[in-house]
């Protein structure tokens, strides 16, 4: 049971390693077994090749017309029935034996790992090459890089670098470790991740760690607006932590944090906006006082 739980937990963190892929063809029938892969397919202009996505998929809206499949645990029969030519997977969500399992049915499995923003962009380009939409994919990457450059220029105007803690949950303190791309998101936004030095992709923090690191801003994966008083209620000793004391506790859409897809740039923009809102970054560019 615990193995299943662990695997379930890994669903939260998406990810993967490029496998050799064949040139694209109109006959491709693709099943995405990870929401991040679905988003990347659409961003690469190859969404029309998708025949099914996971039950967790909710973006882009075009996924509403696609078949749904249980990816965890994988509904193998339903997958075979869809007669896909290719399955897109991520190494963390899907089992390592997937390729050999599906190989028996002549289904190619492309599995990817994401540990940096660069990985996301290179997978996007690779998908474009695979499915015959290289120009579309490269344009998408250029667009994303352009937006990142704009965010970089805002960051360059920051006078200080707020120390940021990103939490997956607020009760048990799941956080992203040093090997996660989320640290890079925080840094690109203009902050410094306090968990950036921890080994691995994820960690369960102790309350003392947060007291010791004293983050200026705490971001929590939350679909709704996060109530900062909830965090103080759960962790009463954090009243001296600057982020809690000064009210810089914010919710960030989990989709931005957990899905290594094109929307990480939206995530970086959202984080940067919160840093500016907190007043801690002291941005000369966005300070309305400087631009009357």
């Amino acid at each position, binding site marked *: 049971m615990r193995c299943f739980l662990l695997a379930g937990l890994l669903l939260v963190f998406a990810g993967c390693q490029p496998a050799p892929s064949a040139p694209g063809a109109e006959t491709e029938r693709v099943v995405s077994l990870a929401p991040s892969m679905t988003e990347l397919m659409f961003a690469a202009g190859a969404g029309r090749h998708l025949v099914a996505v996971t039950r967790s998929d909710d973006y882009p809206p075009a996924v509403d017309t696609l078949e749904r499949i249980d990816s965890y645990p994988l509904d193998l029969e339903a997958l075979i029935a869809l007669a896909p030519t290719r399955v897109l997977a991520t190494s963390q969500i899907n089992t390592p034996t997937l390729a050999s399992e599906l190989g028996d049915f002549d289904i190619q499995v492309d599995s990817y790992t994401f540990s940096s923003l660069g990985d996301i962009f290179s997978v996007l380009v690779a998908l474009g090459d695979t499915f015959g939409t290289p120009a579309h994919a490269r344009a998408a990457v250029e667009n994303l890089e352009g937006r990142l450059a704009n965010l970089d220029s805002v960051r360059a105007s920051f006078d200080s670098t707020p120390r940021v803690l990103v939490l997956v949950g607020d009760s048990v303190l799941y956080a992203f470790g040093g090997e996660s791309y989320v640290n890079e998101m925080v840094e690109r936004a203009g902050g410094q991740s306090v968990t950036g030095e921890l080994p691995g992709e994820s960690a369960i923090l102790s309350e*003392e760690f947060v007291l010791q690191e004293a983050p200026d801003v705490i971001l929590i994966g939350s679909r709704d607006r996060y109530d900062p008083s909830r965090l103080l209620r759960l962790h009463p000793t954090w009243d001296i932590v600057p982020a809690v004391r000064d009210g810089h506790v914010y919710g960030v859409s989990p989709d931005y944090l957990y899905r290594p897809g094109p929307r990480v740039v939206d995530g970086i923009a959202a984080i940067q906006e919160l840093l500016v809102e907190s007043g801690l970054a002291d941005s000369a560019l966005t300070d309305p006082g400087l631009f009357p």
Partner: protein
Amino acid sequence: MSERVPARRVFLGLLALLMLTSVGFAGLRFGTIDLTFGDIWDVFLYRTGVTPSVDPMFDRVIWQLRLPRVLLAGAVGAGLSVVGVAMQTLVRNPLAEPYILGVSSGASAGAAVLYLGFLPAGAAGFITLPLAAFLGSLLALGLAYGVARVGPVLSTTRLLLAGVAIAALLSAITSFLIFASPQPEKLQTLLFWLLGSFSSARWEFVPLPLICTVLGASVLTLWARPLDALLVGEEPAQSLGIPVETLKRLLIAGTALLTGVAVASAGVIGFVGLIVPHATRFLVGVTHRRLVPSAALGGAVFLILADVVARTLLAGRELPIGIITAVCGVPFFLLLLRSRLP
């Protein structure tokens, strides 16, 4: 000779208390933030009103995080060990432990039902995770008890088998709930809870487990003679005039309460209730008058130490304590088993 034995026991008792105090201080001293015994002393002086101020971070770390944690770990460790002793005596089986009657599976199922959002909205409002776990453990035990009881007689064999079967059923239900959960993002919290941890220890969670443990250990120590007799067998005990059926019922009710409270406080922590009673038996013998208090002390020391390891092994991070109790406790127990048994 008769005078020397009590002196030796007093010495051993003092030694055990010294150990408990030492690991207690270790629990206050070690953690993510590096503190000295001087810092602990400063916080103690501040909290007793001797000094007017102290570093607010030290105060929070020692007084609000580590001290309740040490106390709760001690109470739960002692409680589980005492329950282990009682269960092993009750069913006269060395494999018996606090969770053998399905209590842990019941608690897990209760927690899963609540936490993964399977309760109606009205009920979910006022039931907390510990309460749900407690209710689940009582349900499991009630079922096992109902199956094992025939008229006025309670069959311990049937109780054991029913407990194991109910544990399997409830584990299956927990697994199903996890798969069917409409709130998959909550799985991580539940997983951590299922493996046991004192990371959420707060002052308000300390009194109930502490009181239950002290009461349970005291009552079992007072019942030392009937328990000793029960160890020989139900019939011999009966022939000595001991109300065996009443004793069995009281034992089951008491152990259920204590285990339920322990599980609700810190999740399912394995091995303590199995290993500590045996290890203590090797050291002080089978007489309950010595065994029960020794097991309580041993359990408290073991779990406080395990908790220190759980929060210091990986810097800045928490490990579920169930992993530590198994990894540290089992090899020690195997060594003891090998060196002490003929």
